[in-house]
């Protein structure tokens, strides 16, 4: 009976595949628009997702281990139904898109599909494997291994498909970046957990309170995440970094430095409080020291690896990172200066001293101000050689200056309101300390930033008037050349298979100069680049 049912299901699947193939086969070669391609890849992604998770569910029902399955028959029925519907679409669209990739190798749909598959199936694989290893280390054997096999096979299947036909579009590296993100997050969380456990053991040994260490899940995350991160991030990349990789590098470098500086500041705060203010006994006061140490070490390690990448990246990527950290430092310093000033001059303290608060505010203020000064000056020095003020600096001076200016304006309104109310209604009403403190610090910072913006804008050479023009670039990888052309350029990129045809940073600058804001074709290969003028009627612009 079971065999008949399976044969019946296979017959249904086959019939659906044939029906889809016949209905779409005649139109297949005519559909060349990338929009149609993206829709096809989205259907493929949905079919792959439904089939993958149905298969995983079926496998875990078949091999439940020690897990309790509430209603196996219902689980099997649900999984088989999903497979019957999804597999025909999966088989048809996979085969269709394999053929189309030969004709259209630069399809954005393929990149989008691979990114979705990476996000969903690599995450599922990581969760299954961590759960499996966690149970294994703890001595339990559960059904989690079925997820490892199924999702691992799907990830491996896509890996081979990528080796066969790698994505060639501008965002082709998006899949690797997503995989790196999954690996890095898993590795870092696991590393922080393991380090926290180890430092907790150390604190316990020297007289701290006993802690529930629970190493297993963190160790499992570290063991699973690290190889994935290595494979996706640390192996050599095929070409110059594009926008996805640069964005991720800048984001991780910024966040990891902020976390490690925050953790280091927290440690200094603890020690300073212990030395200066009245605190509980050391065992209690330093109770969170092991967590801060772990965050610092993990953060500084992640920062080191990603900061190294920025050395070879375009200058703008480094400047985004430097000004982001400078902005975080400045905002932190302003917040702490406001808190410290209010604490110092407040007339509301009636009992005790606010020693621990004062120490905290002062230490964090120093850390924030030092970070701001160092990073802002490094970024400024990096820009000195350039002839124009970079867009990250304009965003930093104008954007942050405007936000701080708005806060100062709000504080000014509150200050005037309190003053007027005192004059018109009650001379004792309201407090001026808080709004005036906010006004002074945010106003000064806003003035500092906006003054730089105004001076730099006035000193900038007048912008050339450029008419809109078209540029078609034929290469294997465009890199970041789009960001180097003026906004009037309408860029079109066509890909070819010659791996030597990638555009480097230096080449991008040379191409932009050679094009000289004229409509052009640009061919890039192993011999460098060649430019031909583009003849076009004036109304085509």
């Amino acid at each position, binding site marked *: 009976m079971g065999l008949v049912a399976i044969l019946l299901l296979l017959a249904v699947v086959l019939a659906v595949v044939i029906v889809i193939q016949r209905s779409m086969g005649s139109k297949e070669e005519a559909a060349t628009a990338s929009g149609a391609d993206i829709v096809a890849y989205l259907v493929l992604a949905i079919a792959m997702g439904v089939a993958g998770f149905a298969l995983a569910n079926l496998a875990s029902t078949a091999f439940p281990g020690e897990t309790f399955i509430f209603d196996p028959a219902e689980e099997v029925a649900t999984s088989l139904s999903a497979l019957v519907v999804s597999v025909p679409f999966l088989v048809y669209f996979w085969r269709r898109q394999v053929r189309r990739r030969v004709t259209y190798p630069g399809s954005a749909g393929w990149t989008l599909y691979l990114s979705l598959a990476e996000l969903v199936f690599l995450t599922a694989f990581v969760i299954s494997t961590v759960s499996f290893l966690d149970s294994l280390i703890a001595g339990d054997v559960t059904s989690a291994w079925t997820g490892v096999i199924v999702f691992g096979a799907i990830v491996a299947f896509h890996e081979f498909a990528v080796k066969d036909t790698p994505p060639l579009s501008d965002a082709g590296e998006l899949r690797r970046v997503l995989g790196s993100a999954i690996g890095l997050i898993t590795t870092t969380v696991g590393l922080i957990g393991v380090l926290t456990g180890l430092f907790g053991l150390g604190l316990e040994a020297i007289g701290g309170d006993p802690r529930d260490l629970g190493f297993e899940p963190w160790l499992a995350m570290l063991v699973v995440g690290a190889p994935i991160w290595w494979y996706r991030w640390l192996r050599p990349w095929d070409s110059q970094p594009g926008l996805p990789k640069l964005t991720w590098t800048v984001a991780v470098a910024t966040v990891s430095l902020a976390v490690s500086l925050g953790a280091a500041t*927290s440690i200094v*705060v*603890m020690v300073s*409080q*212990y030395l200066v203010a*009245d*605190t*509980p006994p050391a065992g*209690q*006061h*330093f*109770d*969170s*020291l092991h967590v*801060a140490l772990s965050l610092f070490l993990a953060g500084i390690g992640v920062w080191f690896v990603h900061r190294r990448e920025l050395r070879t990246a375009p200058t703008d990527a480094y400047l985004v990172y430097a000004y982001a950290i400078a902005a975080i430092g400045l905002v932190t310093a302003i917040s702490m*200066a406001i808190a*410290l000033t209010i*604490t*110092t*001059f*407040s*007339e*509301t*303290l*009636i*009992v*005790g*001293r*606010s*020693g*621990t*608060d*004062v120490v*905290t505010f*002062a230490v*964090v203020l*120093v850390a924030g*101000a030092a970070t701001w*000064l160092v990073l802002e*000056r490094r970024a*400024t020095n990096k820009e*000195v050689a*350039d*002839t*124009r*003020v*970079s867009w990250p*600096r304009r965003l930093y001076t104008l954007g942050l200056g405007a936000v701080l200016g708005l806060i100062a304006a709000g504080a000014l309104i509150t200050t005037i309101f309190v003053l007027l109310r005192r004059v018109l209604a*009650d001379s*004792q*009403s*309201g*407090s001026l*300390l*808080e709004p005036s403190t906010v006004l002074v610090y945010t106003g000064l910072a806003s003035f500092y930033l906006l003054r*730089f913006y105004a*001076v*730099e804008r006035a*000193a900038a*050479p007048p912008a050339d008037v450029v008419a809109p023009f078209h540029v078609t670039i034929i290469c294997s990888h465009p890199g970041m050349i789009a960001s180097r052309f003026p906004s009037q350029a309408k860029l079109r990129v066509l890909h070819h298979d010659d791996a030597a045809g990638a555009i480097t940073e230096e080449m991008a600058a040379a191409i932009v100069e050679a094009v000289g804001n004229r409509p052009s074709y640009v061919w890039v290969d192993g011999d460098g680049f060649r430019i031909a003028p583009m003849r076009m009627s004036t109304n085509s612009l």
Partner: protein
Amino acid sequence: MTTTERRAPGWLLPVALGLVLVALVTIALTRGPVDLDPDTPEGTVQEYLLAISDERWDDAVAVIHDDWRGTCDGFDLQSFAPGDFSAELGSSGGFGGSELREEFGAIGEPGSAEATIPENATRVEVTINHQNDGGFSNTWHENVTFELSFDGDFWWIVGDPWPYFIFSCPGR
């Protein structure tokens, strides 16, 4: 970047910031709590809390109105004694004591929900800051309201004031 004349000497800003910081920290660490007029409701509350902070239990109980204190004494308060704490006028979300004083002035006005409170009674809101572990979250806050009644030229604490020990006194 084309600007070359846009910076003051590099040391000026860090030095100025450092001087401001040292001044603020010095003032903050050497400055004690404010001295409130003992004839005001806030003054009574300060007296009560200072006595608890200094472990002068009988002095603390002495500012509680006889009608509420009953048989309670310093020993009853001591058994509920909190650890190290500091106290500020106002709730932790408010702007401070002066805001609260104005709020108390409104109590009893026509249409007010609190109109049942007599003119010789008032409330004082206080934020109690308790010491905790190290790191950034080194204190936790507790918003406390003291009720006071004016009787015989003195604002007495009435009700069961923080740390809420009167309910447990023998004979109540």
